[in-house]
């Protein structure tokens, strides 16, 4: 770990492959390096942050690994669904991974996240395990919601993940409620309420936004713009597809959601802003490779060329791969090995999840209601009341 202390000013310059045997930075190094976001930010009623993002070799490698893991998990979920091991509705996140990892890099587990039904990777980013994911997807006991939720309903209370919600846009007002609670308890945390470009046209978004702005809540509304609300392209559904501007009186920031560092910078900026000034809208320009859900092949309303074009030019994992290589943090083979490892991890988790039993049939009836505070009446005319706390 001697290299840890070695700080050089020319770290930004790509190293040649020949140097790889005497790498200046180890992959576990926390030596800061600076990368540029691929595109500038655009702000609405706000000065956008700088394009230079500080990172470390370790973070770069983590980004690569985490995103590769997410990608692999979603591909595996696709096959499990086709094999009918996953039932219910299933929405995959592949293509959008940078949003999850970039956001997590900028915030803590005390900040809250709430999202819609495309929630597998958000859950993983919050520290969920692969086993919990696959078991939940397959409706098994070891799932994060005990197998009772399925694909759309992942939750992780201990790291502030308020879940997967099934109704388009319905989670946004909830997110503002979370933010109010945070502000009230003065704990200097924020809530990221995530929604898609489809949900951006729901009325409740604007109701929630007004309240958040009125009361200066630390709410960050993250519009993951993957450009299709189900099968309808954004331009067919939104008069103004500049979602970051749609808050009108609420500031907004548009970032390249395919660039984990742009996401990280935007989220860091937004968190600081929200704690000081109240809500902000972040628009993450991203793309989903899969269809809206498993019943949508995803190719009837857009061309295959469009999808492969994004894969070639904007893929979030490829971007990190290039950065890793150019900073000579790993060789191509090492990255391939990571992908192999990840693949193995996913396969093992699936095998384990398959072993997990179905929830006990009694679970059908649990968690519908719990008993409320019992009220006892006593006294001669039974007019005395006593509430019994559970």
């Amino acid at each position: 770990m001697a290299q840890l202390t070695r700080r050089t000013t020319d770290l930004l310059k790509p190293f040649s492959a020949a140097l790889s045997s005497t790498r200046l930075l180890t992959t576990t190094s926390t030596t800061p390096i600076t990368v540029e976001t691929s595109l500038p930010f655009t702000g609405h009623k706000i000065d956008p942050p700088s394009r230079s993002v500080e990172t470390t070799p370790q973070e770069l490698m983590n980004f690569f690994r985490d995103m590769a893991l997410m990608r692999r998990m979603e591909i595996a979920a696709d096959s499990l669904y086709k094999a009918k091991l996953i039932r219910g509705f299933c929405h995959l996140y592949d293509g959008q991974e940078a949003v999850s990892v970039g956001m997590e890099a900028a915030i803590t587990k005390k900040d809250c996240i709430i999202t819609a039904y495309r929630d597998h990777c958000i859950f993983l980013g919050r520290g969920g395990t692969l086993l919990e994911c696959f078991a939940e997807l397959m409706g098994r006991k070891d799932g994060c919601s005990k197998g009772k939720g399925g694909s759309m309903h992942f939750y992780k209370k201990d790291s502030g993940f308020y879940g997967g919600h099934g109704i388009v846009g319905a989670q946004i007002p909830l997110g503002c409620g979370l933010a109010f609670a945070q502000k009230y308890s003065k704990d200097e945390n924020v809530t990221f309420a995530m929604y898609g470009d489809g949900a951006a046209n729901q009325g409740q978004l604007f109701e929630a936004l007004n309240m958040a702005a009125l009361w200066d809540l630390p709410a960050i509304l993250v519009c993951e713009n993957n450009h299709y609300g189900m099968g309808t392209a954004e331009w067919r559904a939104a008069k103004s597809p500049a979602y970051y501007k749609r808050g009108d009186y609420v500031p907004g920031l548009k970032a390249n959601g395919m660039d984990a560092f742009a996401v990280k910078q935007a989220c860091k900026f937004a968190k600081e802003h929200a704690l000081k000034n109240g809500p902000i809208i972040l628009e993450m320009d991203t793309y989903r490779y899969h269809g809206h859900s498993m019943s949508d092949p995803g190719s009837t309303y857009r061309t295959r060329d469009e999808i492969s074009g994004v894969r070639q030019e904007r893929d979030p994992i490829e971007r990190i791969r290039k950065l890793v290589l150019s900073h000579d943090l790993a060789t191509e083979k090492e990255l391939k090995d990571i992908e192999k490892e990840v693949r193995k991890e996913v396969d093992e988790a699936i095998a384990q999840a398959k072993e997990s039993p179905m929830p006990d049939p009694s679970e059908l009836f649990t968690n519908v209601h719990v008993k409320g505070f019992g009220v006892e009446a006593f006294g001669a005319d039974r007019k005395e009341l006593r509430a019994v706390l559970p």
Partner: protein
Amino acid sequence: MILVAYGRQVDCAYVFGEDVGFGGVFRCTTGLSDRFGKQRVFNTPLCEQGIVGFAIGLAAMGNRAIAEIQFADYIFPAFDQIVNEAAKFRYRSGNQFNCGGLTIRAPYGAVGHGGHYHSQSPEAFFCHVPGIKVVIPRSPQQAKGLLLSSIRDPNPVVFFEPKWLYRLAVEEVPENDYMLPLSEAEVIREGSDITLVGWGAQLSVMEQACVEAEKDGISCELIDLKTLIPWDKEKIESSVNKTGRLLVSHEAPITGGFGAEISASITERCFLRLEAPVARVCGLDTPFPLVFEPFYLPTKNKILDAIKSTVNYYSSYDKSSPVHQHTLLEKNHLWIYAFNALDRRVA
């Protein structure tokens, strides 16, 4: 195809909803926009409240607005528009305005693996609203006739389509324009021992139970209610007066389901003729489950059990000791007992 029949005739009909322009998630509107133009068949943004409000306005101008809510589970954002705007428009304007041309189509019900938000049957919520009609067809042929009637009916109609049948039901559907009357139930199987009432996809489950019961010598009369409000009380009443027994079945949770309304009304009307309590075989009082869907649903066997115990009710009761009654009850309502037991355990 139904909409094609309608579109052919009327120029003031519009079809819209989420992804409808491309045929909709269940391909119900395939080819419509090519045939009738993108001005009349179009996609909307994902905003159910907006869709229905917009449709009410369109209908108020004398048009036929056929709005699609992609799943009945998503109808709740539009609940206010349906309940407060559409249903009362005529009444509160002293008949100056109405939105009779409004038809809201929504796929409802179980589909085998739909989970919490793609399986619900919300019909009972709407049956509590005077001013709208609620219609549910049981087959393709019925769907065409009832939908055409709903569109032409001078009242706003919520038309729930059993999504389970989209891919399962195959039936010869006449090409010509035909209508089936609303608020008229239909006896689809005649019998003399017990009347079974249902609607939509549940009817095929009930029919299987009728066939099974027949093997045990029980003759079941099966009635398709078709229109839930205003409903055909007379037909049910006359059938129950004939059979002396009634069973209602629906997928929605039992408590507050429309089965409760039928049960209460028929008890009022046929009290002295009833030979057993009205049986309700419905969904459980839980959220619609994902992995436990088979337990939740009112399956053939649950219905068959209820048919038998309803038909045997009087004879069992007559000769029963308290112990006998208890076992009978327990057998009839095994799952209710299980529910109570579990409830205690959980709490």
